[in-house]
């Protein structure tokens, strides 16, 4: 009798653990989605930039809620995964935008440096030409006939 009760308790604990494990996986996904969206929406520019993927992530979250409410945990988890995927898209979009801005700035600096190089080269060539003119005049003056 005692042994039978222990088996039932063990089975109940195992079942509860499995249910809790499946539930906590979904909870992590949802938490990552909420945190990710909140982080992006802190910044007005990012919020505007990521409006489309964030809207899709929120819609997927809503679907997951409805499915969960209807007791369809299997599909709710898939919808959670979809929400997470759109959140990842938004996060990567923010990263790409920042990197593109940085690349644009670096390109502008390089272009500006290129222009300065060309200006400096022109100034140098002008100075070298002037030196050549001075040198020729000096040679003429220093020649035996004194440039006459």
């Amino acid at each position, binding site marked *: 009798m005692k042994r039978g009760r222990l088996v039932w308790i063990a089975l109940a604990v195992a079942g509860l653990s499995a249910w809790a494990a499946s539930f906590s996986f979904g909870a992590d996904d949802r938490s990552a989605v909420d945190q990710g969206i909140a982080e992006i929406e802190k910044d007005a520019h990012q919020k505007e930039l990521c409006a489309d993927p964030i809207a899709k992530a929120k819609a997927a979250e809503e679907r997951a809620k409805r499915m969960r409410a209807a007791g369809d945990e299997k599909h709710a988890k898939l919808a959670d995964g*979809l929400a997470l995927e759109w959140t990842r898209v938004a996060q990567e979009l923010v990263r*790409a935008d920042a*990197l593109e801005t940085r690349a644009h700035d670096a390109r502008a*600096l390089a272009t500006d440096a290129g222009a300065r*190089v060309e200006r*400096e080269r022109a100034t140098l060539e002008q100075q070298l030409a002037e030196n050549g003119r001075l040198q020729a005049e000096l040679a003429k003056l220093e020649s035996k006939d004194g440039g006459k």
Partner: protein
Amino acid sequence: MKRLALFALVMACSGARPQLPLLADVERARAATAQEGELAPQALAEADAERGRARSIYEAGDDISASLHAERAIAAYQYTRMVARSARATADAAKADAELAQKTDELRALEAARKTAERDGDELAKRLLIAREMKSPAASGPADAQREAARLRASRALAMQARLLCGAAKLVSSTAAGLDAAMQSLDALDKKLEGSPKTAPIDEAARARTTCLSILTTARRANAASSSADVLLSELSAASLSPTRDERGIVVTMRDVFRGNAIDAPAQPRLEALGRVASAHGDLPIQVVVHDAIAASTSDERAKAVAAALVKGGAKADKIATVMAGTRAPVVDPNDARNRQRNARVEIVFVTP
């Protein structure tokens, strides 16, 4: 939901199992992302795996799960495109950074070459000036007494300028070619000028000046050392010492320096401050020139007092030379009693090597 309903209706009517519309969307997303695979291979592989799951689950008959996987595959393809954008931007930034570094190096090299060319140009211009002066026109003819007196004053000024230029040349290089001969000629010229000659040796004085300028220029060319003159000029300007440039180098002019033959108390800290600046530019020798408003003692006691104050500030004693110019190089007419006090001054010249 509408699409799913339509899909169910079509399926019911036809009796066949049609393609899930979302799977067609997945294929379009895959086609649009194909090129990005090179930049984001891992993300593309994950998206392809999701696409595979959508297809196989659909084949197994679970349309709702297949739709969710298909949507996830579409999102994963978009994620792939974002990763590719990031990778492309990172590569672009790295390329621009490398180009900037290369252009910066190029710019530095060009700036250095331009500075050298400008120095060469300055030197050529000076040599040209000397060459032109050497070819000065025929000797000055006789003139009336008043004009002759003016010529005598000009001769004295030119002779003094020559002495200062030769003095600067000596500071640059004590073995400068032609320096000794030029100094001997100058001594002879000074003797002639002291005797108040009937005819002013204006041409001789002009030649002496040109010769000394030529010696200084040649000494500089031989020396060929880079100096910190430009930095010094900025520092002196920043210290409100109103520096100027002349053929010798950078000149700071000070007035009201002496009380008798000693340094006046208010001038002492100014001179010591100048000595501190000089200590930071040890490559530049210093010429101290004392000018008077009216004829005064020719003893170099005052010039030595100035040198001592500079040394107290940190200047090197062996880099300082003193000259007593007296009244021979005025800046205003010495006969103008109201303004001639301006002629009393001390020039501290940082000779450009």
